[in-house]
C-alpha cells in the first residue's frame, strides 16, 4: 500500500492508519503524517504543475518553503484553497485535489507552453497583445483562466474565527531547540511567556535531528522540556501557531489553527484564532530554510532539498526513492546521505562542488562505499515525471567553470543543498536591517529596531550547541529586561552519533555551464513562478537592474512561498549579472505575514451579525410590533414608515404627513444627539461655537443653531436650549452626535482650556418623542401635568421641565415640521410607557406614528435642511440663506472663512425650492440641474436636487435644490437632467412651500 514507507522509524503512529484521497485516488497514511509525507509514502511523485510552463513538479521541501505541492483541501463551503501539502496534517477522510493541470497532473495540455517557452521569456506580456486594443480582454481571459493555484469557496464560510488579545513579558517565535531553551530560561524566572510554533508538534529540528542531548536521543530532552514548560503557570504553549506578523511597538500576530485538523482540541470552537500580542521582549527562533542548487532541469520530480529528505526519513519513516544522488556545496547534506544509508537506500553518489570536499562526516560514507565526487557539479537531470539520471561534470576549484569529463549517474532521487538562509522575516518586519555574511554566505539579522533578538539558526547560528546556548542567554536576558531574576540552569550537552568538524561551504548560486545559461535547459530559481536564470539575465540586459525591478519583471519571489526558497539564489544570480557582490545587490523587504493568514482569522468575530453594532432606540420594540419598515441611519435603525395593510411607502407617507398637518402625529426622535453643556463659562464657550448670539437667550428659551467648521462650511445643526443660568442643552444630527461632541471637547481642551465648561453626552439617557400637529396642545392639556401648555405661558421656542402623566420630562416647544409641536424628553427607561400613554390618550385625535420619510417630507415643505443631505461639506450658511443666524458682533468658528473671495462669489450654489412643471412625479433626488436640455459635454451644471418628495398636503411634488445664484432667479425655469436622457422643466421658487409666515408652529 505505501511502497516508500520504511518498516520502522519516524514519529508516526503505525497503529493508526488513515485513509485519504488525492485527486480521486484513495491512499493510506498514518497518524502523525503530513499530506506531503503520506503522498511520498504512497509513491506519488508528481503533485503539481508550474505556473507558466506547466511542468510536472514534485515535493521539494518539508515546510513553509514548499513551492510545488499546493492543494485544495476539502470540498463545498469548507474547502480551503492553496494549502501546502507539507503543512497539512493528515487525518482520516482527508480529500485533497490540485487546481492546476488539465485534464490531469500527469498529462496537462498547457504543458505545450513549454514548447513556446522562448516566446514566453521574462515580461513577454508587456511586449505584445497591444493591438488591436479591444482584443486585450480576450487575451486576458485566457491568462486569467490559466492562472490561480486554488479555487475560492462559493458559499458562506461555515466556521467562525476570533481574536484573542494577550500581553506577555516574553514572546518566543519558534519551538525548536533555540526557542525552547529561550522559553525555558525565561519561564524559570517567572516571566509570562508565550511560545508558538507553526507545526503540530513542538520541537523543530529536534524532531528529526540525529544528535543526542545529555546522552539520550533529542526527543527525550524535548519531552522533558515541554513538560517543564507546561508546569509553569505563566507559560502559554501554542503549537500549530505561526507568528505571522511583527508590527510596531512590539505588537505581533499569531495565527493559531485550532480546528483545521479534526483531531485537534477545541473541536467545538473556532476554526482559527488570531492572537494579538503585545510583548515586552520578543525572541525570534524561527530557524532557517535550506537553499536549492540551481542547475539545468533542477525541477524534476524527485529533486528535493537534502534536509527535507532527511526529515521525511527520520520523522515520517518515508524514503521516496531507492537510488539517491546528493548534490551539495556543504557538509550538512552528507548527513542526509548517512540517513539514506542507515535506512538501506543506496546512495549512488555524492556530488560536492568543493574540490576540498567534506570533513569528517564523509568518512563513514566512504567506508560504506559511497562514491564521493569532489569538485563536481550536476549539470542536468533527466526524467520528465521523475528524475532518472543526472549528468555530472568536474569544475574548477572556485566552482566557476566546468571542466571536461561528463558522467551520467542513474538515480530516482536527487537531494540538493546549497546552504542555509536564516529566516530573518520577522526581524525584518520589525524594522531590523539584515547584513550579508561572507563566511556563512547568507543574510543575518543586524541590530534590532524594536525589543527583539534573534537566536539560533535564524541568527545564522546553525549548530545545535549554538542554538541551545543562544536561546538560553536570550531567554534569561529577556526575563531580566522585564524585571525577573533568571534562575540558573544548565544547557543540555550535545552528543553526536556522527562526527562533527565541518569544512566550509562553498557558495554556488548557479552551476557554471559551458555556454550562456540561456542556451541550456531551464535552471529554475523560483519554482512556483517558473523564474529561471535566463529570465534574470534577460531582465538585467533589458535594464531592469534594481533587485525590485528584477523581482517584479520576472515574478521572482512572488509565489505563495514568498521567495523563501528561491529569493537569495535569485539575488546572487543578479549580483553575478551585475558583477557586484551579493551584499551590494541588497535584499527586498520582507512583508507580513510570514505565511498566509485566512481572511476570516484577520477579521475575527466582527463579521455577519457582529460586523457593526446596531443601535436601537428604547422604543424599537414598539415600532417593530407596529410593523414599521426601518431605515439605516449611521449605526441606528430608525422607523422609516409604518405601512398599514395594502400600503406602500408613498401611501403610508401621505397618510402620516396629513395626520401631522391636520390633527396629530407622533415620532420617535430619540436618535438626535444630545449634549449638556454646563459651567460658569458655558455661554462664552457656546458663543465661539455657534454662529448666533448666545447671551441673549434667556433661561427657558430655545434657539436653532448651526456649527461651522473652521473652513466656514456647515458642519451640524440643531436646537440649543438654556435650561438654567449656566446650563445649556444642545441637539445634533443623528449621524453627527459623536463627531460634534468630539469637536467640542477638542476645542475646549486644546484651545480654550481656561474655560470652565463640562460636556456630557445624554443621547441615550433621554428619549425624545415628538408630538406634532394642531391637536398636540389639546392632547397635552388633557393629560395630568404641572406644566402650563397655554400658548402664552409656553411659547414657541421655549422649554419646560415638569411631570407629564406622572413621568419626569423636559418638553421643548420646537418644530421640525412647521406645525404646532412638542418634543418630549423622558428618561429612556420610561419612554415606552410614556409613548403608550400618549398613544392611548391620542386615540381621540387619531394619533398617527410617523417615520423618517414623513419627517423628511414635512421639513422639506418648510424648507428646513438636513445637514448631509441638503449640504455636502461645500455649503456655507450664506448659501443656505441663513444670514440671519450669523452674528456680526462676535467671532465664531469658521467666521473668517466666510470672508474669503470664493465664499462671496455671487454664482455660488444656493438653496432654493423647485416646482416640477411637468407631471405629478417627484424629481429624483440627486438629479443634476441644467439651464437648457441638450448641449455637448461637458454641459454646465447649475446644481442638483438635494431633497424631493410628493407633498400630500400641497397635492404636488416639491423639491429643494442647490442652484447657482438661485436666490436671485426666483421663477426662472431650469431643467433637471434625468438619467434616461429626458430633461424636465422646473421652476425656481422659495424653499418654504408651506406656511411661509410660520404661523402654524407659533400657534
Amino acid at each position, binding site marked *: 500500500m505505501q511502497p516508500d514507507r520504511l518498516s520502522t522509524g519516524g514519529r508516526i503512529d503505525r497503529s493508526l492508519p488513515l485513509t485519504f484521497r488525492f485527486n480521486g485516488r484513495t491512499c493510506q497514511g498514518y497518524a502523525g503524517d503530513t499530506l506531503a509525507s503520506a503522498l511520498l509514502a504512497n509513491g506519488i511523485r508528481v503533485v503539481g504543475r508550474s505556473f507558466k510552463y506547466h511542468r510536472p513538479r514534485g515535493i521539494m521541501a518539508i515546510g513553509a518553503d514548499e513551492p510545488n505541492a499546493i492543494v485544495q483541501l476539502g470540498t463545498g463551503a469548507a474547502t480551503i484553497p492553496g494549502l501546502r501539502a507539507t503543512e497539512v496534517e493528515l487525518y482520516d477522510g482527508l480529500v485533497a485535489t490540485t487546481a492546476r493541470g488539465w485534464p490531469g497532473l500527469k498529462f496537462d495540455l498547457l504543458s505545450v507552453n513549454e514548447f513556446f517557452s522562448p516566446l514566453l521569456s521574462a515580461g513577454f506580456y508587456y511586449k505584445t497583445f497591444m493591438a488591436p486594443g479591444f482584443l486585450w480582454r480576450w487575451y486576458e481571459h485566457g491568462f486569467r483562466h490559466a492562472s490561480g493555484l486554488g479555487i475560492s469557496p462559493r458559499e458562506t464560510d461555515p466556521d467562525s474565527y476570533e481574536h484573542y488579545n494577550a500581553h506577555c513579558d516574553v514572546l518566543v517565535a519558534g519551538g525548536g531547540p533555540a526557542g525552547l531553551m529561550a522559553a525555558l530560561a525565561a519561564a524559570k524566572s517567572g516571566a509570562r511567556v508565550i511560545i508558538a510554533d507553526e507545526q503540530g508538534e513542538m520541537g523543530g529540528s529536534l524532531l528529526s535531528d540525529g544528535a543526542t542531548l545529555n546522552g539520550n536521543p533529542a526527543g527525550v530532552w524535548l519531552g522533558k522540556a515541554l513538560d517543564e514548560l507546561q508546569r509553569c503557570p505563566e507559560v502559554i504553549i501554542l503549537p500549530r501557531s505561526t507568528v505571522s506578523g511583527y508590527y*510596531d511597538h512590539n505588537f505581533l500576530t499569531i495565527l493559531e489553527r485550532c480546528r483545521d485538523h479534526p483531531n485537534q482540541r477545541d473541536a467545538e470552537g473556532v476554526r482559527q484564532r488570531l492572537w494579538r500580542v*503585545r510583548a515586552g521582549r520578543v525572541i525570534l527562533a524561527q530557524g532557517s530554510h535550506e537553499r536549492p542548487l540551481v542547475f539545468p532541469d533542477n525541477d524534476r520530480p524527485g529533486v528535493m532539498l537534502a534536509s527535507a529528505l532527511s526529515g521525511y526519513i527520520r520523522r515520517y519513516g518515508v524514503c521516496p526513492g531507492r537510488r539517491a544522488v546528493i548534490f551539495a556545496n556543504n557538509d550538512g547534506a552528507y548527513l542526509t546521505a548517512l540517513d539514506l544509508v542507515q535506512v538501506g537506500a543506496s546512495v549512488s553518489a555524492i556530488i560536492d562542488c568543493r574540490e576540498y570536499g567534506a570533513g569528517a562526516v564523509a568518512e563513514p560514507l566512504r567506508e560504506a562505499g559511497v562514491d564521493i565526487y569532489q569538485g563536481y557539479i550536476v549539470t542536468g537531470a533527466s526524467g520528465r515525471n521523475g528524475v532518472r539520471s543526472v549528468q555530472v561534470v568536474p569544475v574548477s576549484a572556485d566552482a566557476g567553470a566546468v571542466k571536461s569529463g561528463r558522467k551520467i549517474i542513474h538515480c530516482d532521487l536527487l537531494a540538493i543543498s546549497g546552504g542555509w538562509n536564516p529566516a530573518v522575516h520577522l526581524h525584518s518586519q520589525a524594522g531590523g536591517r539584515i547584513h550579508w555574511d561572507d563566511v556563512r554566505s547568507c543574510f543575518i539579522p543586524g541590530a534590532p529596531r524594536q525589543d527583539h533578538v534573534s537566536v539560533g539558526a535564524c541568527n545564522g547560528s546553525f549548530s545545535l550547541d549554538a542554538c541551545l546556548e543562544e536561546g538560553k542567554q536570550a531567554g534569561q536576558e529577556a526575563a531580566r529586561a522585564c524585571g525577573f531574576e533568571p534562575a540558573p540552569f544548565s544547557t543540555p550537552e550535545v552528543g553526536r552519533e556522527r562526527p562533527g568538524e565541518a569544512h566550509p561551504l562553498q557558495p554556488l548560486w548557479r552551476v557554471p555551464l559551458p555556454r550562456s545559461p540561456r542556451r541550456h535547459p531551464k535552471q529554475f530559481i523560483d519554482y512556483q513562478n517558473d523564474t529561471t536564470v535566463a529570465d534574470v539575465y534577460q531582465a538585467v540586459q533589458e535594464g531592469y537592474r534594481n533587485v525590485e525591478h528584477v523581482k517584479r519583471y520576472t515574478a521572482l519571489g512572488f509565489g505563495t512561498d514568498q521567495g523563501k526558497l528561491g529569493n537569495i539564489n535569485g539575488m546572487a544570480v543578479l549580483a553575478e549579472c551585475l558583477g557586484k557582490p551579493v551584499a551590494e545587490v541588497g535584499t527586498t523587504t520582507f512583508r507580513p505575514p510570514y505565511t498566509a493568514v485566512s481572511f476570516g482569522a484577520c477579521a475575527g468575530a466582527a463579521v455577519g451579525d457582529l460586523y457593526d453594532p446596531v443601535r436601537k432606540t428604547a422604543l424599537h420594540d414598539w415600532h417593530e410590533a407596529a410593523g414599521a419598515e426601518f431605515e439605516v441611519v449611521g449605526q441606528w435603525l430608525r422607523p422609516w414608515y409604518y405601512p398599514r395593510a395594502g400600503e406602500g411607502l408613498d401611501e403610508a407617507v401621505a397618510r402620516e404627513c396629513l395626520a401631522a398637518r391636520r390633527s396629530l402625529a407622533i415620532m420617535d426622535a430619540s436618535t438626535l444627539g444630545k449634549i449638556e453643556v454646563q459651567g460658569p463659562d458655558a455661554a462664552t464657550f457656546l458663543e465661539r461655537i455657534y454662529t448666533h448670539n448666545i447671551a441673549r437667550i434667556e433661561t427657558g428659551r430655545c434657539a436653532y443653531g448651526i456649527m461651522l467648521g*473652521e473652513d466656514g462650511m456647515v458642519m451640524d445643526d440643531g436646537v440649543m436650549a438654556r435650561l438654567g443660568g449656566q446650563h445649556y442643552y444642545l441637539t445634533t444630527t443623528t449621524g453627527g452626535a459623536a463627531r460634534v461632541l468630539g469637536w467640542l*471637547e477638542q476645542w475646549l481642551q486644546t484651545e480654550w482650556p481656561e474655560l470652565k465648561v463640562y460636556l456630557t453626552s445624554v443621547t441615550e439617557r433621554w428619549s425624545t418623542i415628538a408630538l406634532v400637529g394642531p391637536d398636540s396642545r389639546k392632547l397635552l392639556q388633557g393629560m395630568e401635568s404641572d406644566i402650563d401648555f397655554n400658548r402664552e405661558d409656553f411659547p414657541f421656542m421655549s422649554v419646560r421641565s415638569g411631570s407629564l402623566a406622572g413621568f419626569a420630562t423636559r418638553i421643548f416647544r420646537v418644530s421640525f415640521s412647521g406645525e404646532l409641536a412638542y418634543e418630549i424628553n423622558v428618561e429612556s427607561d420610561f419612554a415606552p410607557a410614556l409613548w403608550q400613554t400618549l398613544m392611548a390618550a391620542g386615540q381621540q385625535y387619531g394619533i398617527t406614528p410617523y417615520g423618517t420619510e414623513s419627517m423628511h417630507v414635512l421639513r422639506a415643505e418648510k424648507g428646513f435642511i438636513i445637514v448631509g443631505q441638503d449640504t455636502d461639506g461645500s455649503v456655507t450658511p450664506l448659501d443656505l440663506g441663513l444670514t440671519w443666524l450669523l452674528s456680526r458682533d462676535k467671532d465664531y468658528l469658521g467666521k*473668517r*472663512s466666510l470672508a474669503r473671495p470664493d465664499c462671496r462669489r455671487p454664482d455660488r450654489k444656493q438653496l432654493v425650492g423647485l416646482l416640477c412643471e411637468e407631471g405629478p412625479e417627484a424629481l429624483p433626488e440627486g438629479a443634476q440641474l441644467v439651464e437648457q436640455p441638450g448641449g455637448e459635454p461637458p454641459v454646465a451644471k447649475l446644481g442638483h436636487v438635494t431633497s424631493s418628495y410628493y407633498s400630500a398636503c400641497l397635492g404636488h411634488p416639491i423639491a429643494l435644490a442647490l442652484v447657482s445664484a438661485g436666490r436671485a432667479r426666483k421663477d426662472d425655469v431650469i431643467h433637471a437632467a434625468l438619467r434616461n436622457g429626458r430633461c424636465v422643466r422646473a421652476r425656481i421658487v422659495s424653499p418654504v412651500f408651506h406656511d411661509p409666515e410660520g404661523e402654524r408652529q407659533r400657534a
Partner: protein
Amino acid sequence: MLLINCPWCGPRDESEFGYGGEADIARPANPDALTDEEWADYLFMRKNPRGLHREQWVHEHGCRRWFVLERDTVTYEITDAT
C-alpha cells in the same frame, strides 16, 4: 498598531485613540485682522515633517482627554507625551 501612553490612563492600544494632527497650531486671536493668505496658512498649511512630529491625540475610548505626543513619523517611535 501603536502603543500610546495616555498621560492619564497609561499605555493603551492605538485603537482606543483618535488622532488630531499637528499640535501647537494656535487659533489666531483676531481672525478678522488676518489676510486671506495668513488665514489659509492657519487653516491648511502643515509642517508634515519626515521625522519628529508633535501631534495631538485623544483617548477617545477611555478618559476622552486630549494630549500631545512627540512621535517619529518614520520609525513611529514615541519619544514624549504631555
